[in-house]
């Protein structure tokens, strides 16, 4: 296996996913197969090659600093599962 059950649980914790037992088992197997396939990129010696993060040569896009209307508070909160007094409301930390 390219990835162990413990690693799957660790990654799920990093990604904030609470997996069921069934999912842990299924994903360990599937992610192993996928990781073995994508590990192919390591076959190439690319020590002299620059990485590409973005397909266009666009850097430093400037905009004029002009005020524009923003979303009204009610709109910004319109889709919130819970709200109170103009804030998003969440369970206690």
């Amino acid at each position: 296996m390219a990835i162990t059950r413990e690693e799957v649980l660790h990654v799920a914790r990093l990604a904030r996913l609470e997996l069921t037992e069934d999912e842990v088992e299924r994903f360990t197997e599937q992610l192993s197969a996928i990781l073995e396939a994508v590990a192919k990129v390591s076959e190439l010696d690319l020590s002299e090659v620059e990485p590409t993060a973005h397909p266009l040569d666009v850097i430093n896009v400037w905009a004029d600093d002009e005020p524009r209307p923003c979303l009204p508070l009610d709109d910004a909160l319109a889709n919130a599962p819970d709200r109170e007094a103009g804030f998003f409301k969440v369970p206690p930390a």
Partner: protein
Amino acid sequence: MIDTLRLTAEEAMGLVGRGEVSGAELHRAYLDAIDERDGELHSYLRTVDEPDGHGVPIAFKDLISTRGVETTAGSKILSGYIPVYDATVATRCKEARLTLLGKTNMDEFAMGSSTENSGFGPTRNPWDPARVPGGSSGGSAAAVAAGLAPWALGSDTGGSVKQPASLCGIVGLRPTYGTVSRYGIVAFASSLDQIGPMTKTVRDCALLYRIVAGRDPCDTTTVELAQPVQIPEREDLNGLRIGVPKELNDAEGIEPGVKELTERTIELCRELGAEVGETTLPRSVEFGLPCYYLVAPAEASSNLARYDGVRYGLRVEGEDGVRAMYDRTRDGGFGDEPKRRIMLGTYALSAGYYEAYYGQAQKVRTVIAKEHAAAFRDFDVLVSPTSPTVAFELGAKTANPLAMYLSDVLTIPSNMAGLPGLSIPCGLSDGLPVGFQLIGPQFSENTLFDVGHALERAIGFDFVPGRFH
């Protein structure tokens, strides 16, 4: 009587422009067609009953924000989400007097090649309802092919416009990265995502691209088009140099029927006056897929971190505070494919693995871009099949994610380089459509439209599925 199966968007604009048919009558004709045929196909997640304007209708993939109209990206985690603003492409369509007909089904968060990953049930292929329409823009492709919309917008990250267009027998453009705004689009992999037109003809495709393309101050990755979009009229290919990359055309898994039609179409390019020659992309095809399945999940794991049950969408409450709420919301709201990709991306970006996976994939991306640039020194356009196969049966690849990923092996390489690609139907293999992929250098859409239009005329493909004749 409006025959929505045959009517092109250009013809629809003519009818409305000359006052022969009103926008409301057109809208009604498409809603009637949807009532008649979409029960079987499920290309729409929801329709809009009353047109907001008087122009020609259009359908949007359900990841394009539409003010006041639910937008889910095919995910239960966004169920009930009603955008409070329009995406820029939606605004541009409104300014062009297009009216929203409805929102089309898709693989959840655009992750998939069959539309079976939708959180709301699959879409079926209008040519054969036992088969998939491709994906992730399968709803848009099926709607256009079945005469349930004159045209539609989809999105393409690894092939999600080109591949479903191919499997449904329509035209699809993945534009040059940065030419169409993504403001208001539900993000998947931001260095790859592009919005693209899905239409019955190449001229419709150019018309819709002209409406949506151009710089948007709200999306700093957009650029101004170098030349205005031209609606193609050419009937020959004189003076054009067309390259046939052998790795894209001899790739493992290309079905014999697909290969034969592709070769016949290449021969047609020669007959129309093009200079045709073989070329090579030595590492782009072999390493394109692994490169994509590191870069796209890495970006997705970051983009999908926003779904936490706080500001919008689903919330699943837990007994023990906010952290349990996050974890349960995300486990309950995402389907398997987003979970797989979030975990793959999180792994590829995690300490100790970053350089070997994500860092290395970004370098492969440079190699792929350089190989394509080298091929374009000798050729104006590169060609290949769009998809190695015709539409496959529902369920055929759902148990094996890697087999599903291979559906995009021919569309991914040029996507990694930010290049535009056009898929046009080139014939039927055993009664199912085959797509022909045209790839150009960045900003070469006008050339792709010219070649696509000349070929389309010469091929004379009937875009109405046989079972509706």
